[in-house]
């Protein structure tokens, strides 16, 4: 159990007019800060922030000389080296108009942030620390990744809700139509997936393989009857009845038989005509704006209300064209939440750039990669330790050569992953950790390692003794007789003289 060292390469770039007066050394200089992440485990985790302080180059100055922060971010992006896991913080003068009033930090879509100068080096360092908490990892995100090894009481109740790191995920979009006689629902899912979902999955393709499928289910009802609310003349689903909605539906979803990857289900429910419109209430009784809810490690459900037709004599079934953009906005937001990328808990003077159709910013991808890399390495070490304990327990287990080679590869990959983490190469570290996990899982779950197949020594004795003991009795008695005769013969010559 070695030490984890997570190295983050950071660059702090000072625009002209923003250099604080109390720098310890003239620019450019390097600085390394190490902090221990106290997770109370045997392998301790330290984070190293290797910071380079320098001035802007002429190109960067030109890029910063634009009207808004968003344009500056877009202009700065091609100038950076964009290494996975790195951060660049541009310090602009206090009076700069790039940042709106009241906002001191702007976090862009890629891996850079604009910070308003002021307050000297100490204030700058605090800002830098806040920024790294947002953009790379925090103690709680790392400890959540290691939740397997932390005893139960120490983590908060929602520490294990994010999806576990896996080599692939399957995403299933389902349209539930319980009332096909009234609503003939059409959704152009293929186009929506190509336009809106695929860019997000392409961005996430570094993390895992994704496969997408979709289905339409008819006559699938929710397990709960919604209440009618006279004031708003609509039907309401209260928050405490939501957990019971999923199960009756899940039996009909048909989780795919083909792959062993975790499945994420996204359901779109079009309520029956007699139960329209249907709104979801949160705990305080207010209707939820998105009309959707999600379950950690499972997926999400959204309720899509069809407007009542203007004239009551319209012919049924009504044709409904689902507005896929609204639906995909919610589903993709749920996908982000399932992976653990949420935008809460920010200091008040931070402004985050929205990532647009890509779904997630580069630094959010980095956050995911940090957490998954650490989780993978921890999983590898627990798996291999447990395999070693199994071998200790059953002395005569036979390890096939291919299992042995998988174990060696897992160890080598895990070591290289830790080395890359300490060097700050997040991309290589993540790839190495994925290989390590694949090899260790293959070694651990090899069908030949079933302990049932290897008899412990006491069972061997129990089988052979009833066979050999009766046979051995006359042999041993004869041996005893031989020894006695030999002794007697030795004594006789002395007698017989």
């Amino acid at each position: 159990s070695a030490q984890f060292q997570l190295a983050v390469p950071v660059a702090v770039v000072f625009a002209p007019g923003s250099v604080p007066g109390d720098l310890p050394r003239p620019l450019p200089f390097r600085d390394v800060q190490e902090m221990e992440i106290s997770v109370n485990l045997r392998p301790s985790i330290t984070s190293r922030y290797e910071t380079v302080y320098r001035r802007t180059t002429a190109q960067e100055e030109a890029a910063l000389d634009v009207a808004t922060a968003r344009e500056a971010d877009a202009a700065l992006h091609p100038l950076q080296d964009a290494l996975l896991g790195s951060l660049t913080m541009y310090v602009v003068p206090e009076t700069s108009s790039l940042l709106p009033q009241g906002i001191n930090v702007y976090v862009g879509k890629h891996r850079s942030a604009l910070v308003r100068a002021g307050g000297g080096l100490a204030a700058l360092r605090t800002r830098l620390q806040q920024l790294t908490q947002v953009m790379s990892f925090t103690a709680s995100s790392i400890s959540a990744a290691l939740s397997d090894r932390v005893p139960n009481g120490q983590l908060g109740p929602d520490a294990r809700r994010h999806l576990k790191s896996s080599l692939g995920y399957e995403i299933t979009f389902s349209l539930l139509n319980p009332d096909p006689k009234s609503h003939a629902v059409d959704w152009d899912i293929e186009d929506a997936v190509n336009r809106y979902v695929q860019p997000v999955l392409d961005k996430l393709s570094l993390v895992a393989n994704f496969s997408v499928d979709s289905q339409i289910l008819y006559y699938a009802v929710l397990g709960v009857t919604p209440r009618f609310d006279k004031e708003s003349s609509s039907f309401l689903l209260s928050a405490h009845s939501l957990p019971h909605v999923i199960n009756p539906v899940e039996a009909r979803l048909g989780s795919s038989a083909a792959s062993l990857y975790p499945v994420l289900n996204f359901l779109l429910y079009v309520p029956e005509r007699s139960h329209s419109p249907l709104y979801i209430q949160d705990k305080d009784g207010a209707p939820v704006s998105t009309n959707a809810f999600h379950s950690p490690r499972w997926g999400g459900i959204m309720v899509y209300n069809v407007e009542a037709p203007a004239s009551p004599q319209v012919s049924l079934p009504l044709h409904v064209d689902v507005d896929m953009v609204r639906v995909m906005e919610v589903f993709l937001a749920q996908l982000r939440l399932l992976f653990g990328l949420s935008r809460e808990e920010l200091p008040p003077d931070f402004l985050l750039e929205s990532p647009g159709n890509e779904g997630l910013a580069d630094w959010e991808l980095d956050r995911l990669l940090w957490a998954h890399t650490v989780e993978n390495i921890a999983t590898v070490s627990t798996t291999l330790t447990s395999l070693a304990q199994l071998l200790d327990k059953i002395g005569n287990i036979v390890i096939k050569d291919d299992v042995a080679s998988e174990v060696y590869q897992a160890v080598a990959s895990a070591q290289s992953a830790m080395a890359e983490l300490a060097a700050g190469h997040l991309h290589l570290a993540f790839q190495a950790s994925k290989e390590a996990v694949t090899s260790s899982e293959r070694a651990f779950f090899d069908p030949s390692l079933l302990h049932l197949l290897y008899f412990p020594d006491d069972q061997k004795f129990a089988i052979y003794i009833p066979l050999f003991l009766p046979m051995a009795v006359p042999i041993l008695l004869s041996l005893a007789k031989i020894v006695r005769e030999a002794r007697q013969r030795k004594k006789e010559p002395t007698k017989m003289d």
Partner: protein
Amino acid sequence: VCTSRFWFNYRHVANTLSVYRSVKRLGIPDSHIVLMLADDMACNPRNPKPATVFSHKNMELNVYGDDVEVDYRSYEVTVENFLRVLTGRIPPSTPRSKRLLSDDRSNILIYMTGHGGNGFLKFQDSEEITNVELADAFEQMWQKRRYNELLFIIDTCQGASMYERFYSPNIMALASSQVGEDSLSHQPDLGIGVHLMDRYTFYVLEFLEEIHPASQTNMNDLFQVCPKSLCVSTPGHRTDLFQRDPQNVLITDFFGSVRKVEITTETISLDRDLAVFESKLPKDELATEPLKYAEQLPVAQIIHQKPKQKDWHPPGGFILGLWALIIMVFFKTYGIKHMKHIF
């Protein structure tokens, strides 16, 4: 898991199917249930009512029904398969429905019934699983975090011996009888000719009939089910390995499926009119040749096989010593000089 076969063990199949029905009623879907049955009751030639399995002598409820999904049937119910399902060491060709794909947030309920003894459970009249093996399998599951909490219920004779050896955390166990006692069956049905159900499971099911998915009944009530007056045997339970207090554990934590749910409050904003652009990553060209059979063999495993030894080697070790001993005794007893008569 029902570990018996043959017609006279009708009650074990009825036990298992009734528990299966309750668990499905409370919300667990088939994709989350692994059902192992010998499945030779419903279509048995001795069944006077074919295609049915009843759990009560008034024949009210046909627990076999229309949508029973048996994952391991007949001769597939072996100790090896059972342990493989638990530990996950399954050959790669096994379909998803036959696997236990649980993770560290899953609560697992294991119900076993059949004939058992002190420290073992008989599987299909040909093999047994011992309590030590079961405890080791659970430890393997814990090491890989294949469960969050595990509830183990066993309805056999001397059932309490099966949970004596557990040592992994977060396991709660219930058994229908203590060591030295037999579990008895509930009632025979004169029409079908066999006993339909075991007492402990019968009263457990009566208890479960009152549970609905939102109920707040806890485990202590389940421990009180089937006192000695009704059951004749003394049910036992074990909670020392469990971290939570049984008072706080809901029945639906194991028998039903109530998920944690969060309201979605965030949305992202999508640009509606963005044109569909070609994916930046080049799609790999698919191989134009069809895959040959040889390419699908597990090459790594074949390469690493040692070649079989073809030449004969003289016996060594234990066998050699045994033969030497026998020959020496033989010669000593009969004398060397007699050997020339033999050769």
